[in-house]
């Protein structure tokens, strides 16, 4: 158990103290440097692949490759490294499928121009983050949204939510799980979670 390895910066952090992490420095780097690129990454993958579940699968492949490379040596800066891996995986997939997507190529061209630029302004990002969360919550089905509000805003436990909503704890867990998936994508700026897909 690598307890307290993340300095317990906030109350939320302390909840996870005790969760064993084999490679805390790579984990920290991954959360700090890679996950903030998810909005950009998903924008790219969604345009290349068009099918949102394909994009989520490819995101997983990108993250696995990035993480495993970082276990040997942490790439710095992260952004061009992550986007190059994404680009290569898309090309592999396209070659394998014997089809080419015109969007991908148009995007590659754009990507090579973009990749030297600094990341998005953190303050602006933080401001739009709350807006994205709000929109994601508003789009959740009624019961799911209610469960999410009770949990995350009112701070109720699963059991308390079950009593308040008059449903079983198992159903609460289902609502929360479905809601969490959407909320995490929204906070990371995945355009498909934000209803922004053209």
């Amino acid at each position, binding site marked *: *158990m690598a307890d307290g390895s993340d300095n317990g910066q*906030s109350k*939320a*952090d302390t*909840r*996870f103290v*005790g*969760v*064993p*992490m*084999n*490679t805390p420095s790579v*984990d920290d780097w*991954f*959360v700090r440097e890679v*996950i903030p690129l*998810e909005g950009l990454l998903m924008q790219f993958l969604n345009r290349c692949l068009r099918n949102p*579940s394909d994009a*989520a*699968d490819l*995101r*997983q492949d990108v*993250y*696995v490759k990035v*993480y*495993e490379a970082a*276990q040997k040596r942490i790439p710095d800066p992260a952004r061009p490294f992550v986007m190059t891996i994404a680009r290569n995986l898309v*090309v592999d997939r396209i*070659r394998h499928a*014997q*089809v*080419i*997507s*015109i*969007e*991908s*190529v148009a995007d*590659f*061209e754009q990507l090579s121009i973009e990749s030297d630029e600094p990341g998005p302004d953190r303050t602006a990002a933080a401001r739009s*983050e*709350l807006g994205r*969360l*709000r929109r994601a*919550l508003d789009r959740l089905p*009624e019961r799911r949204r209610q469960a999410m*509000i009770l949990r*995350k*805003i009112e701070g109720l*436990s*699963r059991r308390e939510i079950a009593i308040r909503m008059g449903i079983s704890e198992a159903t609460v*867990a289902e609502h*929360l*799980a479905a809601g*969490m*998936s959407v*909320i*995490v*994508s929204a*906070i*990371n700026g995945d355009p498909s979670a934000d209803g922004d897909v053209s």
Partner: protein
Amino acid sequence: MSGPQSDKDCQGIPASQIEVEAISWVERADREDWGAQDDASLAEWLGRSTAHRISYLRIRDGWKRADRLVALRGTFGTPKENTGTRTRRMRLHIAAAAIAAVSLVGIWSVVSTNQPQASVYSTDLGGHKVLTLADGSQIELNTETEIRTKFDEHKRTVWIDRGEAFFKVVHDAGRPFVVLAGNHRITDIGTKFVVRREPDQLQVTLVEGSAEIDSPNQPGSQHAILQPGDVAIATATAMSVVKTTQESIARELSWRKGVLVFDRTTLADAAAELNRYNERKVFVADSDAAQQRIVGTFPANNVDLFGRVAQSVLGLHVKERGKNIVISQ
């Protein structure tokens, strides 16, 4: 350590499935009754593959950052009542707009009845035009298209002399809308459809409503009533009707937005389609290259992008020949 052997375990497992498990771990860790036994189980699950680990890190981090949702406390009202009122009000607006639209069409019909017109409309290579006729019907012309229209109080007639056009017809039982293309006649029964005239055949795709197609000057020739999704292909001597899908119709109509949509289209067919719109032509030199398939949305006027796609992704050779480009294996 999460060894690289783990990687293979998760290959082909959908991200969504791993995510469900990761969410369940994060949600449980977020609860009060988390014990040492849970630590051990989570460690075991995380150690099983990098895919597990990255999914867990991602969900845990996002869920933690979503703590800032507390800033929205008190901003969630009683949505049921609100949406009810909004919907009712919106319906009223729509009803009012519909009434306005109907009376507008009424006025236009009267005007056009009194003013019979015969006009020619055309587009050049790569052109695109939207015409709104006096009766409110719309005709959208694709590249290199020419039509003539003649409206009188009994009949609305459009000749399509070449090219392709999309029709959105305002129905008028007393004044049929007829499209003539060579020997073929399409009679509208309140509808949206596309007519594409090529030297040796006519293709009619019905989008909405219903229409009849026949060849009035050929005794004994076939005729058909088209329903949404029907594609009729008529040559000088024969006619066939097949059903197509919504997606395929949307693809076929993509020129209205200035793009071409390919879905596993062969390079040869895609090039032919692109060549309908551009002075700068694409030639596919050999059958190997011609059989490659492409997917995607593509600006109808960007020949260079098409060449770059063939080169950088398919690894084909692209050469300039005069103002044209030649693609080969």
